């Protein structure tokens, strides 16, 4: 029983990571109908931004929660900028072309960031500084670290935050309008370029927050770290119903739990394959995802 509960904790903390990244996929898809394949790589850039900021502040030797928050916000700001830049330089020029063009552009941007990252940062994995002292809480026979708890809490808070932004604010209304019909929203006086840039900024900032927090819990970062994690988060987003915010959360948790339970069996090396088998299955059986419906209310 202890083992089952421990695996549940492991699975939820892994799932929260996927959920956090899946939220970014879902936001951009909701507004633009674009699968932003570079999203996982923005997550990687976030981890590296955090790495350099934390090392500049020498946080490894002097851990501090306040400075850790500052570093996370710094990384989020940097990645928000990167996200806006990617949208402006890569996606906006092809926005009026077919969706396939945009999709291929997204893959191109993703490859650029991955291999550009290898040139700039080097291919050697780095260890993320310990900005917060790692602590393990034991409840009975169960162990959870403060970093895992942090990821779960942040993922939940972010989900509710996004729901609030999309449904309760002016910019959220503009996002929904843009999502519903871009040309008409533009005719109604909505600055759609700004709305789209805003969406990318928020999505990328979330990815950066995810990158920093994951690096805290699993402190190994390298330029290709966003590849597999990003793809699995994408599966999570599709599973939950892409474009749907609580769906991304649910999808992330399901993928995380599945992976954890599979790792615990003799078939641990098949866990990546299973994530993609799920993708194929969901596209065959229920393409709109668990929480999506035929006429999904998109973000």
């Amino acid at each position, binding site marked *: 029983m202890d083992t089952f509960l*421990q695996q549940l904790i492991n699975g939820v903390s892994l799932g929260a990571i996927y959920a956090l990244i899946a939220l970014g996929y879902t936001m951009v898809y909701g507004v633009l109908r674009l699968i932003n394949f570079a999203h996982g790589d923005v997550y990687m850039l976030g981890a590296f931004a955090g790495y350099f900021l934390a090392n500049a502040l020498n946080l490894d030797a002097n851990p501090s929660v306040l400075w850790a928050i500052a570093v996370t916000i710094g990384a989020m700001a940097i990645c928000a900028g990167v996200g806006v830049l990617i949208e402006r330089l890569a996606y906006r020029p092809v926005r009026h072309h077919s969706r396939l063009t945009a999709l291929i552009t997204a893959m191109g941007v993703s490859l650029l960031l991955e291999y550009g990252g290898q040139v700039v940062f080097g291919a*050697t*994995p780095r260890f993320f500084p310990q900005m917060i002292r790692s602590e*393990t809480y034991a409840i009975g026979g169960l162990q959870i670290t403060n970093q895992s708890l942090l990821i779960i809490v942040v993922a939940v808070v972010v989900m509710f935050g996004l729901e609030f932004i999309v449904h309760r604010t002016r910019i959220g209304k503009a996002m929904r309008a843009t999502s519903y019909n871009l040309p008409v929203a533009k005719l109604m006086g909505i600055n759609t370029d700004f709305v789209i840039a805003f969406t990318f900024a928020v999505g990328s900032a979330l990815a950066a927050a995810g990158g920093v927090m994951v690096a805290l819990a699993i402190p*190994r970062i390298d330029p290709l*770290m966003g590849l597999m994690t990003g793809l699995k988060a994408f599966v999570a987003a599709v599973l939950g119903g892409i474009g749907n915010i609580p769906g991304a959360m649910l999808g992330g948790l399901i993928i995380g739990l599945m992976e*954890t*339970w599979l790792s615990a069996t003799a078939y641990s090396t098949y866990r990546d394959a299973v994530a993609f088998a799920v993708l194929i299955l969901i596209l065959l059986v229920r393409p709109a995802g668990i929480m999506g419906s035929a006429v999904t209310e998109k973000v």
Partner: protein
Amino acid sequence: MSCGTYFGRRRLFALIGAALVAAATTACERRPGTAEADSTGDILVGVYASLSGDGASFGQSSLEGIQLATEQINTAGGVLGGRQLRLLVEDDQSRPEEASSAVTKLITQDQVVAVLGEVASRRTLAAAPVAQRYQIPMLTPASTNERVTQVGDYIFRICFIDPFQGEVLAAFAYNDLEVRRAAVLKDLQQDYSVGLTDAVVRHFTALGGEVLPPVSYSTGDADFRAVLTQIRALDPDVLFATGYYQEAATIVRQARELGMTMPILGGDGWVGDALRNGREALANTYISNHYSGDNPSPVVQDFVSSYRAKFNREPDSIAALSYDSVKVLADALERAGTTAGAAVRDALATADVAGVTGQLRMNEQRNVEKPAVIQEVTYADGEVRFVYRTTINPH
């Protein structure tokens, strides 16, 4: 204008094509290794190493050891009557396919007389067939997988092999730590880890211990909590992590986070800079290794002090083995009296050199039988130290 550019480009392509054909035919004429050995000028030695990627620490240490030995040999007057050794270094990015093309380049283009490398068995196994095919001797400092030197009669090594290393680890765990129920985590992608796992399981069982079914992971994995939780449920009193240092650091940390306090044991693959990321969790972990820098013997201490002087850090066992590999090669070149591949191979086969890592006497299988040391891993002030515990001799 555009017409001119078009023709210009066509002509350029024609030129490149002709050049390629010419290069290809020349390459065919100049069969490396079989050609007459040069008798003057620098002696070109190829080095392929993982200078970037997962195994970057291996590549760095290895190259430094090789550079130090080469420098010492050259300062002392070189080999074969005053000829200098010149190193040509290729980075294989810790990827087996790159290792094989790096060695192909070193042999066919650079025309090296011998190749030094690699550390990780998987990459040596990928590159060794190339050296064997071109009949250029390859000497690996630290690849311990049994199959490496079975590739062919041009492939040599100067370290012990994993069947022995596994025996050493099993014996230390069973006799010294007095543990009886072992769990094993292996890296399915690395021949080294798979081979070492087999050996550990075989010997630990033979001693009377119980081994739980080994659990696999892949190089590059960063989250081991699920598999560790599963292992924890089976309540072993020792854990063998037979992979490399990157993953070992994470495994040790996450095991301790899950409240697993049992001793964790690894092989020489743990010797890498990034192991220090295991931090305080490294307490109560042990490794088998090739050499101990604590050894008071003057040969070892001379090496340690000149290495420290040149690179401003402590040499690890990979650096020591790599240093020795150059000494063995230089000795073989000297005794062969030529740089011709077959003659150097024959000389390597009878090598018997006193090295930093022990007496390097080549056996029939082109391996060296040496004792292994067990070291305790300790962590303090951001640095990992390997503290000598015991020596286990081959029998």
